[in-house]
């Protein structure tokens, strides 16, 4: 298998949670490959933000689209070639702010793609503004007197939208995270992985997560249970919250057949 790290200089801050995430993703891709997925069949898309830089560092094909639109782009990729495994790297500003609608609709449709949400609780790349996941009181450049909004809870929001696989992990739990991404990608349908990602420059949550994260021993037995665990601030539960097999979007609308040739099309039009 080829190297998964490109030669592009890495410009994440030293200590950024993205390094752990990156390591876990490489591990999961290796697992996918070892389990039989051709490397050519693994593609990604990414939003714009610190998270999106993984596009330059990770040596797989993909499309680095617009801020907030990575899931829409990825949906188009998947529909056009359902054989591809499509990983999407989104930021919390990106996927739950600018691009919120695409995230909820990908879940609603049960598009067979995987969203890896870099939850760093702020807009990193634009130097630390409050994001849709910033806690109340967060001080950033656009909220110098403190954020007055309440954050979304991504796990329950995505369950509500209809995601058929929902999990949470932490960049400092590389083994747990890589296993989860592996399972998420293999899950047929929309899979969502919230990754707690400390941002050392603007929202250093290492201590918080190190102290409070706790891995669940199993998938919660009910939705209510899952919801209440997801909302718990202490402990912060890591693990799969929800998983079900339901019909996948592209399988319901298409056979995935080959594109007709021009001659075939013209013949059809003349018939």
């Amino acid at each position: 298998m080829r190297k998964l790290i490109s030669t592009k200089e890495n410009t994440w801050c030293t200590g950024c949670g993205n390094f752990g995430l990156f390591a876990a993703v490489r591990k999961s891709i290796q697992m996918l490959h070892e389990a039989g997925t051709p490397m050519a069949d693994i593609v990604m898309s990414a939003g714009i933000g610190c998270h999106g830089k993984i596009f330059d560092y990770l040596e797989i094909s993909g499309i680095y689209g617009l801020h907030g639109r990575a899931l829409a782009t990825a949906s188009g990729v998947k529909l056009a070639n359902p054989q591809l495994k499509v990983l999407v790297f989104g930021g919390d500003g990106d996927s739950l702010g600018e691009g919120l609608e695409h995230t909820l609709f990908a879940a609603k449709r049960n598009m067979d793609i995987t969203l890896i949400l870099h939850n760093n609780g702020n807009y990193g790349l634009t130097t630390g503004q409050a994001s849709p996941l910033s806690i109340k009181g967060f001080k950033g450049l656009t909220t110098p007197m403190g954020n007055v909004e309440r954050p979304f809870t991504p796990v329950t929001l995505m369950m509500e939208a209809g995601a058929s696989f929902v999990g949470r992990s932490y960049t400092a739990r590389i083994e747990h995270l890589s296993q989860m991404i592996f399972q998420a990608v293999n899950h047929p349908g929309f899979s969502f992985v919230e990754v707690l990602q400390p941002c050392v420059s603007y929202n250093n949550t290492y201590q918080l997560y190190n102290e409070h994260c706790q891995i669940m021993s199993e998938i919660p037995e009910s939705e209510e249970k899952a919801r209440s665990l997801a909302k718990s601030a202490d402990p912060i539960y890591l693990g799969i919250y929800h998983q079900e097999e339901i019909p996948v979007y592209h399988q319901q609308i298409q056979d995935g057949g080959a594109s007709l040739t021009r001659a075939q099309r013209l013949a059809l039009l003349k018939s």
Partner: protein
Amino acid sequence: MSSKIYNVLIGGKAGEGVKKAAQVIADLAVKHGQYIFQTDDYQSLIRGGHNFSLLSISDERTYNTYAKADLIVSFDQRSILRHLEDMAEGALHFCNEGDSEDARVIPLPLSALMKEHYQGPAHISLSAVAIFAALCGISLSALQEIIKAEFRRQVDENIAYAAAIYALIKERYPQGQRSLAANPDLPAKNYTGNQAIALGAYAGGLDYYYGYPMTPASSILHYLAKMRDTHGVYAIHAESELAAINMAIGSAFAGRRSAVGSSGGGFALMQEGFSLAGMVEAPLLCILSSRPGPATGASTYTGQEDLYFALNQGHGEFARIVASPDSFERAFSLAAELLDLAWECQSPAILLTEKQLSESMINLDLPVDDLHPPLSEEAKYTEPYERYALTESGISPLKFPGAGNCAEDDIIKWNSNEHVESGVRTDTAFTIVAMRDKRNRKYESIVKATQKYQRIARYGQGEKLVFAYGSTALELREAQKYLPFRLVVPIYLEPFPFEELSEYQGAEAIVVEHASHPNFARFLKEKLNVKIKTNILRYDGRHFHTEELIQKLKEAFDA
């Protein structure tokens, strides 16, 4: 006006089947060897209001409607009043008994007959079809046949009701009003402009169409959606126009031809995605069907106000193709061409049209055999594959992800940030320039690529020179039946077909367009230094009726 042309107007409330009646009449006329042209005037509402459909029926090809109709059927009082002035000499204007006292209109016992023949909901629209059939020498069996095919609910009641009307008219007008001389080899199928565009794009290889409903572009989405199982094309109603264009770019990345379509408002939302297509060099067909703006504007009407908007889509500098079909045939061929061009040049292309073409209908043989053959794509790769290899043409080889499409270790990266050849982001001054220069070289490549297509159209002879684009050319071609002039129509707007149009450099011309400012005239001035003698502008959302346009042209010619 031309005695050959028989003009029909059907008016009534939304929900009464006005448009449907006109379509069925058009079908009947075509089946009886006539050329037809149909346009609908309706508002953004589902029931009520006032809708009317105009239909020109003729032995020769017609391109437009007329203000004065030979046959009018009004389903309600508002229609009667609205269209009293629209009666040609000798016109018959029918209405429901009791709806009017006016001597010019002819009451028929429509309600009474509906009560008699229907138990449940009745179809008033059938009356217009039956009246037409009876007045134009169409047999009862032909009438019944089409009713069976087109009005599938309450078929028996429909047939009985239509027969009663038919008999009544036959009795009152044994001579009929018009005989339909059958023309041989006449195009037997009717298409709207949007259907022609949809089928053209399909012929050009369209696999995925992403849209969000917006009049007057919606029917492309609807039409393609119905073709899924028969034609293997996918039309997807996205959550928004923003989603649509980004999905389409994703599908192009994965190697499938894709397109999006909307009207001005939705197109405005797609601008960032349009710019993305410029940067990642995504082949992408965008269909912009205009209506009067700004904002929500007059949503069911026509206009050509978006010319500069279309030409200047998206932030940053990048090459694009913009072209506008001047006929239904061209709607078909241009959609195919633009999709081919988008892929040949890896650039976004806009098919700019307007409600008047999108939603009008004509009987048409799709020019299927006249399409240029698709390009033989012989990409020259150097190893390793680099998405943005710096080529002389500005066009880099395309490869697609997925086992079977590319080698196991090919890395195919499309990047919305400025990038190096491999597709990885860069901020280096030198590379920014090199990549921009590469993309800018595509301007020339696009010019070359478009040269193999028909980029302008010329119609008619005469001293006077008239310029127009888009469906305004149709209106002018109908006017040419009565007035001699040379009509010159740029089909391609960007790149501008300087070669073909060089002879008009500095020429004096009349420019006709559907906008409140002479935008197209300004464009011609900038490109060709055309001296504008008169601007004929219409911007109330309506098309020109032939009579009016002739009048305006005469005034301009005589000025």
